[in-house]
């Protein structure tokens, strides 16, 4: 068991820079997910940790030990690949046993046929068989030991790949989108299983995915990567509630966070569609900003809203999802509909074409600068009484 530290990792392929100085500390026993759109460099970063790629500069430490010059096999990490990468001509048991054979048997003992008669080989083989069996039973694939990978379903292959990674008790597990080849139902089930596995093994997991649901549900911390930069590393709820970058805010969350164009008024308040909102930020007055509100933070009501933050619009579309209802509202002069997530009971009376008002709690408004970075909100007042210029009233 060991933590992993990355220090200022850079990597280019030909002319394209893939990683722009990534630094990250992963604690011992932590489940950290690297999430980002395809091509953001997350898989490259994982391969650099594994030693399958060499970084151009920067250091990788596994358990306080610099591993930059160590080949993959000496780093004592295991990897589960997207394609599972099972050896096609070996049985399940042989697949799982291979990493142990390479570690516990000498080159002579590994020889075909003759190796069986080398001193100590029999005892070592028996130990390997025992461990392989234990791991396979633990993952519920004991009965498949004699099958070849081609005879297994996707879910079974994924378990064999996990078993092969687990059997040698590595310091850390690296997982490269291990669930993306499973169907939707299996994926939800496997998510739980991998989380439980992490709890029971207590090992460090580094998990790469482009699926935010996997990132949010399984991780201790999520690292959001875009274009070779780490934008934010934080627990899932913090990433969701308190994103430090507009790209993080829009990438995480379904449906996507609502964004509105705004600017900072002379008094520091954010103005949206010409109306000042009771949200005061630190920033240059006159600067363009983007205001972002999560769908569940928007309230939709018939008629005029009582809150100070209010937008008037028309319902374009109502999506009933069962547990919740999404209402798409076009608030003129904006063209892109704003999406609100509300209780089905609250949506019962809403029809496409109805004029409605949208309102929100100022404390749930996120403001981002032109560079996409979050702008700190100095004061945001909850439902407010119209105040004198430059003042805000707290309730």
């Amino acid at each position, binding site marked *: 068991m060991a933590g992993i530290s990355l220090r200022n990792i850079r990597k280019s392929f030909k002319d394209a820079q893939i990683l722009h100085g990534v630094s990250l500390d992963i604690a011992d026993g932590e489940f950290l997910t690297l999430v980002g759109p395809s091509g953001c460099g997350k898989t490259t970063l994982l391969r650099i940790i594994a030693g399958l790629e060499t970084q151009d500069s920067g250091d990788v430490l596994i358990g306080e030990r610099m591993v930059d010059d160590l080949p993959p*096999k000496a780093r004592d990490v295991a*990897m589960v*690949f997207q394609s599972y990468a099972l*050896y*096609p001509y070996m049985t399940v048991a042989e697949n799982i046993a291979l*990493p142990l054979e390479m570690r516990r048997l000498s080159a002579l003992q590994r020889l075909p046929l003759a190796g069986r008669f080398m001193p100590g080989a029999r005892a070592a083989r028996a130990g390997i068989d025992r461990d392989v069996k234990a791991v396979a039973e633990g993952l519920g694939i004991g009965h498949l030991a004699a099958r070849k990978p081609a005879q297994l379903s996707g879910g079974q292959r994924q378990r064999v790949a996990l078993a092969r990674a687990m059997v040698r008790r590595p310091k850390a597990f690296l997982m490269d989108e291990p669930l993306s080849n499973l169907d939707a139902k299996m994926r939800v089930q496997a998510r739980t299983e991998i989380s439980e596995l992490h709890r029971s093994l207590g090992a460090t997991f580094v998990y790469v995915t482009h699926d935010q649901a996997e990132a949010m549900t399984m991780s201790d911390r999520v690292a959001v990567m875009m274009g070779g930069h780490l934008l934010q590393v934080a627990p899932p709820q913090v990433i969701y509630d308190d994103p430090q970058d507009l790209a993080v805010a829009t990438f995480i969350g379904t449906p996507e966070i609502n964004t509105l164009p705004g600017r900072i008024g002379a008094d520091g308040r954010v103005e949206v569609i010409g109306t000042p909102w009771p949200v005061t930020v630190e920033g240059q007055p006159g600067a363009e900003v983007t205001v972002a509100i999560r769908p569940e933070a928007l309230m939709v009501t018939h008629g005029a809203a009582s809150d100070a933050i209010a937008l008037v619009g028309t319902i374009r579309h109502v999506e009933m999802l069962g547990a919740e209802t999404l209402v798409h509202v076009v608030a003129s002069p904006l063209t892109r509909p704003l999406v609100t997530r509300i209780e089905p009971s609250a949506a019962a009376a809403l029809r496409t074409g109805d004029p409605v008002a949208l309102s929100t709690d100022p404390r749930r408004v996120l403001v981002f600068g032109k560079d996409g970075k979050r702008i700190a909100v100095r004061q945001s007042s909850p439902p407010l009484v119209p105040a004198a210029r430059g003042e805000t009233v707290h309730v």
Partner: protein
Amino acid sequence: MRTRSIAATGLGFQLFRHAALGLGAFLMLAPFVIMISVSLKPSGEIFSPEFTLLPKQWHAWQNYADAFTKQPLARYILNGFIVTGSIFACQLLTALPCAYALAKLRWRGRETMFMLVLLGLLIPPQVTAIPLYILLWQLGLLNTYAAIILPSTISVFGIFLMRQFFLTVPDDLINAARLDGLGEFAIVWRIMMPTAMPAVIAFGVLSLVWNWNEFFWPLIVVQSEHLATPPLGVVFFANAEAGTNYGPLMAAATAITAPLVIAFLAAQRWFIDGVTMTAVK
């Protein structure tokens, strides 16, 4: 798929197609059929004006007995196995690591090296025959098994065939092996070779057929009868029997062709997989 193609092409074309293929097959097989037929007949019947496929009077036992006793035919066949077996083993030993390096490792000059390998395919063996002969003479290896085997130990075609097959093996399989603790040579022998078994077998059949039938090179470097490979043996046989006794001669020819046919039939399924590159996964 099949029914549609029949409907689309019509019966006339079907008949024509089968007739053309049948004619081709007949032309290919006829010499072998006559060879086997002659090997079963007494000498009187071979040149009789009326041709029959099966002999009127069976003479198979005598012909085959003559073939194996008048000349050391079994020895020639054994030589054939020794030579082709050693050559194939050496070819695998060199072709698999080379193909792996050319297909899956990243190093400067790889593409140039591959071009040079392809260039090697273009050079006919006769061009290098004289330098090789002189080299073997200087090493004192003429008239030994080594003289027949050494020049064939590196198969450019084998490197090319295995490289093409290795390209289809997913990189993650190799990465998984690296993490599982295998070194690069262990990857070649424990991962790549078993994965590429269809190609190995296809290459094996081609190599076996090529080297079993090789006449030119053994004729140059081998004088002793006890080192003769099967085709040389048939020539010795023809010379010794003054070329008249066709029954035993054809029996000998049948006997040395049989291992090839058996090897091909046994490996047929993999052979086709290997040549058409559709096996992995």
